């Protein structure tokens, strides 16, 4: 595959400035730049729109409040009252993934959520945090999480390993879901964009129309994956409180 036209070329990381710290390469790259933009967009939007603190909100303030209420509702529906203290974390996670995906939808802009290392790091934070939380809440009893009550005893040798494996694969499924969605979506867009150029005469409008439709779908997926990431985090937090 020619590297120049590869649909995967968009995922390549280009250092903007080379930085090295303690022997490690921590260059500020286009991925870092996308993260910077994401963080700036979120913080500036959520700060400036609520700056007036109006009782009767402006449209922009209303958007911030809707996002706030959306995640607050999600958390209280899945975890209940215990969930309130994790609200800032879940909200940050949701906004980071959502705006990261949205920033990636801007043409020529890098999508950091299409990198498995990034999504895996986020998922690992959730996984490790939730496991620690489970041990804090239940101590050694947390291991009974893998024991399913009401099942015939001879099934346990089979079910307990399955439960353990499914628990351990949580960070993988959580990260791969987001990563694969972003990777596939952006690759598909790029492939069809190639068709627009390479197809003869006016026939290029057909893949172009497809790209327009696909862009809409991708924006939907960008939201959906952020939502899924947030709701699964909520469910895992709930599991740390309520064993079977």
């Amino acid at each position, binding site marked *: 595959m020619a590297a120049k036209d590869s649909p*995967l*070329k968009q*995922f*390549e*990381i280009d*250092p903007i400035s080379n930085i090295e*710290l303690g022997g*490690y*390469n*921590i*260059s*500020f*790259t286009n*991925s*870092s730049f996308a*993260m*910077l933009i*994401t*963080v700036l967009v*979120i*913080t500036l939007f*959520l*700060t400036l729109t*609520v700056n007036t*603190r*109006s*009782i009767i*909100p402006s449209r922009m*303030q209303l958007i*911030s*409040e809707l996002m*706030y*209420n959306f995640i607050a509702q999600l958390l209280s529906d899945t975890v209940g009252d215990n969930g309130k203290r994790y*609200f*800032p*974390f879940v*909200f*940050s996670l949701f*906004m*980071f993934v959502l705006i990261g995906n949205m920033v990636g939808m801007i043409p020529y802009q890098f999508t*950091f959520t*299409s*990198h*498995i*290392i*990034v999504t895996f*790091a*986020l998922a690992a934070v959730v996984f490790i945090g939730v496991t620690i939380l489970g041990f804090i809440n239940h101590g050694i009893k947390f291991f009974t999480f893998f024991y399913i009550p009401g099942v015939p005893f001879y099934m346990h040798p089979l079910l307990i390993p399955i439960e353990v494996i499914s628990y351990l694969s949580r960070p993988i499924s959580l990260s791969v879901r987001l*990563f694969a969605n972003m*990777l596939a979506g952006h690759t598909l867009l790029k492939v069809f964009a190639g068709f627009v150029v390479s197809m003869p005469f006016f026939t290029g409008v057909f893949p172009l129309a497809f790209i327009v439709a696909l862009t809409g779908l991708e924006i939907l997926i960008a939201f959906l994956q952020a939502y899924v990431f947030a709701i699964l985090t909520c469910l895992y937090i709930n599991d740390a409180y309520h064993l079977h």
Partner: protein
Amino acid sequence: MPQLNPEFFVSQLFWLAVFFTFLFVFLWRVSLPRIATVLERRQNKIDENLSSAKELQEQAMEIEKKINDQINKTKLETDEKIKETINALQENVSSQLSSLDKDLEKKVSDAEKEILKSKDDQMKNINNEIVNITKLTVGKITDIELSDNELNKVIETHKGNFN
């Protein structure tokens, strides 16, 4: 696939940690409390307005009750006054009627007395006429001069016949 190239793994993780931590702390400490304050203030305002609306409604109901009481009271008072006036008028009318009756009775009795008196007078006149006529008639026929007393006596005895 560039995603599996470990060359920039550390860089990505480092900047992810930096930016996500910043985002988390910033939202936790600055943005979210702000939104929460706004939402709380709005809820308080709504609650306040609702409670004051309730209070006003109660006051309105109280005033309405007072108005109704006043109306009822006034109605009763008016009824009483109307009754009193009717009674007074009736008394007045009946007393005037009775005095009129008395007047009429008096007038009637006076008239009756006059009638009786004039009747007596007429009867006396008739008697005198009868005496005179009888005296004349008897004088012309018999040349007997009768005294008035004798004639009166005779007439008294025959009075029943021409009455």
